[in-house]
C-alpha cells in the first residue's frame, strides 16, 4: 500500500508550479494571437524549435540567458511566418499552424543530428540555476513549494500581470481587443488592423519561445527530441479553459501543470494509470466547450481580414 503522503506532498505542488510554467507562457502568447483573430496551433512547434535554439546558443556561448533571448527571438520569427501566411496572404490558420508543427518536428530532430550527431538528445549545456528567495524559503509548507525555483518560474506571474495590464489598461490593449472583436470597426476608428494582427501573432510566438526555453534551459539542461510533448496543445486548452483571460489562463495553466506533475508522480509509483491523468486537461477542455463547466466564447471569429 502506497502512502498517500508519498504522492500528495509539498514536492508535488512545487513540481506543479514548475510544469505549469511553459504552459502558462505559451497560453498567454496564444491569448494575444487569438485576441487579434488568429488561432496559433503552431505553438507546439514554436516551443520545440525555441527549445532547440536556446540550447544551441547556450552550447556555443556558455550563457543560458543568451539562449533564452535566442529562443524568444526564434519564437517571434516563427510567429512572423505564421502571420505572413495567415494575415498577409490570408492563408488558412489551422493549416499554417499544422505546417509549423510538422516542420518544427523535422527540423529540430534534423538539427540535433547535425549538431550533436544524435536524433535523441543534445549534449548537456549551461542552464539557468534555481534561485532561493531568502526568508520565504524558510516558511513552513509554503517555503518548499515556492521558495526555490528557476527565475523563469518567478517571471511567470509577473508576465501574467503585464499581459493583463497591456490588454486591459492600455490603448494598445484596447486596439488589440477591438481588432479581434470587430476588425472593420477598428479600421474605421483608424487602427492599423494588419499591424496589430502581426503584433499579436509575433507576441504569441515570442511567449511560446519563452516556454520552450524554460523546458530546455531550466527544467532540463539539454534538448531532447519531441521534448514539448504536446504542451503547446495543452496551452491551447488552457487558453480556452481560462476563457482567454490572463488570470484565467494562469489558473488553468496551474491546474494542468498540477495534472502533469501528478501524472509523473503516479507513473513512478505505478498506482494509477498515467494515461488517465494525461487525458484530464483535454477532457476538461471539451467539457468547458460543451458548457458543462462554465461557458467559453472565443474573442474573435478567426477570419482573415480583408481591407475594404
Amino acid at each position, binding site marked *: 500500500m502506497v502512502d498517500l503522503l508519498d504522492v500528495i506532498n509539498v514536492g508535488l505542488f512545487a513540481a506543479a508550479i514548475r510544469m505549469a510554467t511553459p504552459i502558462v507562457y505559451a497560453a498567454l502568447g496564444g491569448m494575444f494571437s487569438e485576441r487579434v483573430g488568429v488561432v496559433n*496551433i503552431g505553438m507546439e512547434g514554436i516551443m520545440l524549435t525555441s527549445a532547440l535554439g536556446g540550447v544551441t546558443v547556450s552550447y556555443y556561448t556558455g550563457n543560458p540567458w543568451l539562449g533564452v533571448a535566442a529562443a524568444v527571438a526564434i519564437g517571434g520569427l516563427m510567429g512572423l511566418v505564421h502571420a505572413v*501566411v495567415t494575415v498577409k496572404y490570408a492563408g488558412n490558420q489551422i493549416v499554417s499552424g499544422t505546417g509549423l508543427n510538422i*516542420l518544427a518536428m*523535422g527540423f529540430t530532430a534534423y538539427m540535433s543530428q547535425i549538431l550533436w550527431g544524435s536524433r535523441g538528445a543534445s549534449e548537456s549545456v549551461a542552464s539557468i540555476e534555481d534561485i532561493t528567495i531568502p526568508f520565504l524559503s524558510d516558511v513552513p509548507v509554503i517555503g518548499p513549494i515556492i521558495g526555490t525555483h528557476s527565475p523563469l518560474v518567478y517571471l511567470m506571474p509577473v508576465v501574467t500581470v503585464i499581459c493583463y495590464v497591456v490588454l486591459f489598461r492600455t490603448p494598445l490593449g484596447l486596439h488589440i481587443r477591438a481588432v479581434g472583436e470587430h476588425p472593420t470597426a477598428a479600421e474605421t476608428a483608424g487602427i492599423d488592423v494588419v499591424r496589430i494582427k502581426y503584433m499579436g501573432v509575433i507576441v504569441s510566438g515570442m511567449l511560446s519561445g519563452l516556454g520552450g526555453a524554460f523546458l530546455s534551459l531550466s527544467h532540463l539542461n539539454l534538448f531532447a527530441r519531441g521534448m514539448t510533448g504536446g504542451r503547446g496543445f495543452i496551452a491551447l486548452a488552457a487558453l480556452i479553459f481560462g476563457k482567454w483571460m490572463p488570470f484565467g489562463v494562469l489558473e488553468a495553466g496551474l491546474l494542468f501543470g498540477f495534472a502533469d506533475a501528478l501524472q509523473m508522480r503516479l507513473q513512478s509509483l505505478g498506482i494509477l494509470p498515467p494515461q*488517465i491523468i494525461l*487525458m484530464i486537461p*483535454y477532457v476538461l477542455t*471539451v467539457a468547458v*466547450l*460543451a458548457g458543462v463547466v462554465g461557458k467559453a466564447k472565443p474573442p474573435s471569429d478567426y477570419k482573415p481580414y480583408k481591407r475594404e
Partner: protein
Amino acid sequence: MTERLTGAARRALADLRRGSEGALFQVAAILLAFIVGALVLYASGYDPVSAYAAMLRGAFGDMYGVGQTLTQATPIIFTSLAFLVSSKAGLFNIGAEGQFLVGAFTSAIVGIYLVELPWVLHIPLALLVGAITGGAWGLIAAVLKTRFNAHEVITTMMLTYVATYLTGYMVNYPFKAPGWVSQTVKIAPSAELPRILPPTQLSAGILVALALVAFTAYLLRKTILGFELRAIGLNPSAAESAGISINRGIMTAMFLSGAMAGLGGACEILGVHRRFIEGFSPGYGWDGLAVALVGGLDPVGSLLASILFGALRSGGMIMTRSTKVPLDIVIILQGLVIIFVAAPAFIRSLLKRRRK
C-alpha cells in the same frame, strides 16, 4: 431543360478551369518545398541532388520500393479522404488521428476476440466496427458543434489526445499482451487482411482505400447527400433556406469523416501490424489534413498526394541508409509543403511575378 444543361456544362467547365489552376498551385507548392529542402541539405553539408535521387530510387526504383511506398500511402489515403469529406461540408476535422486510433483499436478487439468466424465474415465485421467507432468518435465533435456551438477544430484536436491516451491505457492495462511492450495480442488469422505483394507489407487495405477513393468521388459528385454536404459547405444559409438541415448535415459529414479515418485504422491493424501497438501511428491522421490540401481537396488528388507522402516516407528510409542524410529531412519537406499549400495567395503572387 437545355438551360439547365448549359448551366451544368458551364459550371463543369469552370470547375475544370479552377481545377487545373489549382493543380498548378499544388505542384508549385511541392516544388518550392523541395527547393527550400535542398537549401537546408546544402547548408548542412549534404548534396541535395544525390539525396533526392536516392529518395526517388528508394521509393519507385524497384517492386519492393513501390510496395513500401503504397504501404505507407494506404493509411494516409483514408485520413485524407476523411479530412476531405468534412471540409466539403465546411467542417475542419483535424482529429482524424484520434478517429483512426479508435477505429484501429476496436477492429483489433474484434479481430482478437471474435474467433471461430470464417474470414469472409470476420474481416468485414472488424472493418465495419472500426469504421463505426471511428465515425462515432467524429460524431462527438458534431454533437458538440450543433448543440453547444463548440468549434470542431478545437474539439477534434482535444478528442485526438483523449483517444491517444485512452487507447494507450487500454493496451497498457486491460488488453495488454504478456511481455513488456504496450500492445494487444495478435488478431486471429481469420481477421488478417492478406498481404498482396510480399515481402513488402502491402496489404489488401490498399484495395479498400482505392474503393473508398471511388466511393468518395461518387458520393460527392453524384448523390443528393454529397450535393447537400457541398451546399452546406459553400453557403450554409442558402442551403438552409433550400430546405437542407444543417445540423443533420454536420452530423452526417462528421460521422462519415470519422468512419473513413476509423476504417483506415482498421486496415492498418488488420493488414500491417496485426495487433494494436501503442504509438503505431506516426501521425497518419495529421498527414491526412496536409495530403488532402496538397491534393486540392479532390479524391483523386488525395490519392496522388498520399502516394507522394508515402514515397517520402519509404524513399526517405532508403536515402538515409545510402547517403547518411538524416531521415528527418522528409518531415521537414512535409512541413514545408503544408505551409506553402496554406497560402495559395503567396504562390499566386510568385507565379505572377514570374510571368511579368
